[in-house]
């Protein structure tokens, strides 16, 4: 008798699983979304991005598919640590469009012949949005963190991702470096700060900005260094955090590029162009990203306060120099500090 009951339950559950799988699938993971969207899907674009911009693309992609250029385009999106994502695409992961955190991750693809050399030829140098480096603290700021020096107070644990896989980590380290070295003029002072920070206050190595946020929200650390857009995302999600942007910080610029071997080159290029339109810029701004279109930026000035001093990558000599001297494996100054502290 019991045996028959077990068989019946088993049968019912199996049937349930099969019925569930008979429904059509798709890429959207929002509740209530219909598979494939309305209308025939004519092409698919595969987007490989760093870990933080999904909140922006959640707004921009639906808007793009409503335009004439984007009609019938279905998106497949992958998010992860910028360096790791770039490594995967270089190793053959399928992609039509990439949006990484730092320029070297695009350069890797240019060197591999996957992205055209003129990817950043437009007026915005291939950068549709950006942010600033900010310090995220627990709600109420119990440790009273206001500036870079506060991070070196005894007992303060700083959460920042691993610079060898994450783009965010590089920005996070460049901000205090630029502040302390006066824009790279006093390298020794900048590196001295980085050494104290990494050796004494960084204990975990999350692989990406998003994982760093998760680690911080789960209770590890007193301070999280991150993108301003990621801080806004956490706050708007209701997490008990707030962010403090130090007076001197760094301008984050996140580049995009089209893969030249894409099977949907025209659509990918159309998407690329779309990201720079005022409509898309406004949507990125609403999602917490600092737009590059100055007219749109004016409207959102309240959300994005201007820091007293904003260093940029050009002040330090451009990404090629910075990556080569500071972050290159085995030889970069910051890379060596990080290796020594974590090895």
């Amino acid at each position, binding site marked *: 008798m019991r045996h028959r009951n077990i068989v019946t339950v088993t049968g019912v559950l199996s049937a349930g699983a099969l019925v569930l799988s008979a429904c059509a699938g798709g890429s959207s993971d929002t509740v209530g979304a*219909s*598979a494939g969207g309305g209308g025939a899907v004519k092409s698919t674009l595969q987007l490989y991005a760093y870990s933080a911009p999904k909140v922006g693309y959640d707004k921009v992609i639906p808007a793009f598919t409503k335009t004439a250029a984007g009609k019938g385009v279905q998106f497949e999106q992958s998010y992860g640590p910028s360096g790791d994502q770039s490594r995967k695409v270089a*190793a053959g992961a399928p992609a039509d469009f990439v949006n990484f955190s730092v320029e070297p991750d695009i350069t890797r693809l240019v060197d591999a012949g996957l992205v055209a050399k003129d990817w950043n030829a437009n007026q915005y140098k291939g950068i549709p949005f950006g942010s600033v480096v900010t310090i995220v603290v627990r709600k109420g700021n119990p440790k009273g963190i206001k500036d870079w020096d506060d991070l070196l107070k005894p007992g303060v644990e700083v959460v920042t991702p691993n610079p060898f896989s994450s783009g965010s980590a590089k920005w996070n380290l460049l901000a205090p470096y630029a502040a302390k070295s006066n824009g790279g003029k006093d390298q020794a002072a900048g590196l001295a700060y980085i050494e104290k920070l990494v050796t004494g206050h960084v204990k975990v190595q999350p692989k990406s900005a998003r994982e760093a946020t998760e680690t911080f929200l789960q209770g590890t650390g007193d301070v999280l260094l991150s993108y301003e857009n990621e801080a806004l995302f956490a706050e708007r999600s209701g997490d008990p955090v707030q962010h403090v942007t130090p007076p001197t910080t760094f301008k984050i610029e996140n580049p995009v590029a089209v893969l030249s071997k894409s099977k949907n080159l025209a659509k990918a290029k159309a998407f690329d162009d779309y990201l720079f339109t005022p409509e898309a810029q406004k949507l990125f701004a609403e999602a917490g990203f600092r737009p590059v279109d100055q007219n749109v930026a004016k409207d959102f000035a309240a959300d994005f306060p201007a820091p007293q001093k904003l260093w940029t990558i050009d002040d330090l000599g451009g990404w090629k120099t910075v990556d080569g001297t500071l972050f290159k494996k085995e030889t970069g100054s910051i890379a060596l500090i990080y290796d020594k502290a974590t090895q």
Partner: protein
Amino acid sequence: MRTSTGTRLTLRTIALGYLFALLAVPIALILWRTFGDGLGAFIDSVRTPAAISALNLSLLIVAIVVPLNVVFGVATALALVRGSFPGRGLLQAVVDLPFAVSPIVVGVSLIMLWGVDGWFGGLDRLGIRVIFGLPGMVLATIFVTLPFVVREVEPVLHEIGTDQEQAAATLGASSWQTLWRITIPAIRWGLTYGVVLTIARSLGEFGGVIMVSSGFPGVSQTLTLLVHSRYIDDHNVYGAYAAATLLMGLAVLTLLLMTVLDRKRSTT
């Protein structure tokens, strides 16, 4: 050995308490958190296009892995039990190897072999994508599920002996007829049990596929990858619970099948 009532009750309490704290309570909590807002929220969460695609992909991988494991598993078991060739001990050890390999190491090994810089990297230039494609995930799943059918069929083959098969041969049956009509029916419960174990392990594979998957929701995410991605990437804790509950449902289903078959196996 007669234990006093006191001892018996103490042991029972400790055992049940341990199981309660380790198994029962966490699972009950997840179920409560998943269904606390009603069945509707759960159904919606597992019916998103990405979740359906993940379920389909998991089932597709099972549909590929199981027949391959059945064919080669039975062949391996036959070779191990009925064969007499040099290297049987080595074959035995190789079949057991997957139990000793961490899923992450499985992923890394597959990357070293099939990746663009690997031994078979040339396949990528021919347009066949193994790593970051379905074949990679299938290979990882076959690796970890390889021993199950073999280990379940082997003892049965050993127990039934060759008498029936030899009788069939003397009556003029070809080896194929013998295999199909004598051997397979004799091992059917062991084989089915092995298949159920294979299905359970395939659905649960995570560490290996996360290394070789391209990670696109709706395309190359299995249910396990979906649970992980919802929790970490999407900050969608409820969604992660819902997907985990779905997987747990499938696991319970497998467990029920295992219990039913175990009884059939020991009574046949």
